[in-house]
């Protein structure tokens, strides 16, 4: 399991799948990922593979294609409190030599590899981000297509009051369709058991 993506690290497949994800039943067994639906990018039927190898690996998952929309750039820039017109007005961006609206540095945080299509929030656990890094190698603009893939860089465990605390570092990379590296992000997640085993609250009576 998990060794099913033989492509060497750093080379994304020439044709990332266009089709939406298939969400499958939760993974059992692996504690940090327990309860997380496995998302696999639809390809030919039966060819579904767990997209992310939960074990540390130098191999990236199969890439998911992200189409960069103007509205998504604007909404993200607004959410981050950005005010630069390059992120909001394509005329300004073009006048400064860009193809279209420019995505802010942090925009890749909103892009999805197959892994992050689902919220990383296993039941009865809380997830905190302890560390985050974003690096853009080239500007990303509206209209671009970016193939995003993930890998687990390392995991570790430490005993805690309410059970083991797990640390997971995940790296994402985004590439243009010709394989050029556009961005890299890393985040370290701390997964621990909730004190009272909370489940997301629902409407009364639901």
């Amino acid at each position, binding site marked *: 399991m998990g060794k099913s993506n033989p492509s060497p690290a750093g080379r994304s497949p020439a044709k990332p799948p266009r089709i939406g994800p298939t969400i499958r039943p939760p993974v059992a067994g692996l504690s940090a990922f327990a309860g997380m639906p496995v998302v696999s990018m639809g390809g030919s039927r039966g060819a579904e593979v767990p997209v992310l190898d939960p074990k540390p690996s130098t191999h990236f998952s199969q890439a998911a294609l992200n189409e960069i929309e103007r509205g*998504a750039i604007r*909404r*993200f820039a*607004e*959410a*981050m*409190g*950005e*005010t*630069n017109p*390059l*992120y909001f007005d394509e005329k300004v961006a073009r006048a*400064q*030599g860009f193809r279209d609206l*420019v995505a*802010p*540095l*942090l925009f890749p*945080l*909103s892009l*999805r590899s197959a892994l*992050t299509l689902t*919220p*990383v*929030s296993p039941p009865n656990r*809380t*997830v*905190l*981000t*302890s*560390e*985050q*890094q*974003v*690096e*853009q*190698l080239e*500007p990303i603009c509206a209209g671009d297509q970016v193939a995003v893939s993930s890998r687990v860089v390392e995991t570790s465990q430490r005993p805690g009051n309410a059970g083991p605390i797990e640390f997971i570092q995940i790296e994402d990379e985004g590439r243009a369709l010709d394989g050029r590296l556009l961005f890299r992000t890393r985040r370290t997640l701390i997964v621990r058991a*909730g*004190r*009272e085993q*909370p*489940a*997301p*609250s629902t409407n009364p009576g639901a």
Partner: protein
Amino acid sequence: MPLTRKIYYSSLQVGDEIPAWQSPPLDRIQFARYAGAAGDYNPLYVDEPFARAAGFRSVIAPGALGLGGLSQMLTEWLKGPFLRRLHAKFLKIMWPGDILTCRGRVTGKHREGNDYRVELDLWIENQDGEMVVRGTGTASLFHSAQDESQRLAGGPPLIVDDPPSPADPGSAKPGASKGTAKGKSKR
């Protein structure tokens, strides 16, 4: 464009401080907006009963909003999107109502090909003076106004190597001549 002077590589020195930037008080709407825009639906950001049941006193701010504050500080300072890389460690939880003061300092500069890069130490304090985020960043700047106008006109970049400081050649690296660069490595 803004009347304030633009920051160029040639005008920066190691040890220069970045003008601090202060956020408005963090609010829950902002957390929800972030969750939606980033697709990061961690219930700790938006679901108060969940957060309480998990032992927190309220919902907590997404760490990425700290990165957002640093990015805004740098965009204001540099007058443009010249930021290449941001890294942050989230040392303490940021709560609704917190007022964040973002700060930073230049720790290095070097040319890499056509790229004039500036390395930065960055941090965020809350209203109680506690350091809640600590990080680093890299910006890539125009060397100077001449470099900028040349490139924007479609011309070649200006290639200039940092001269050793004229007063004291040879001491560009190890020299203790710049008192400001000292004592910055608090780790």
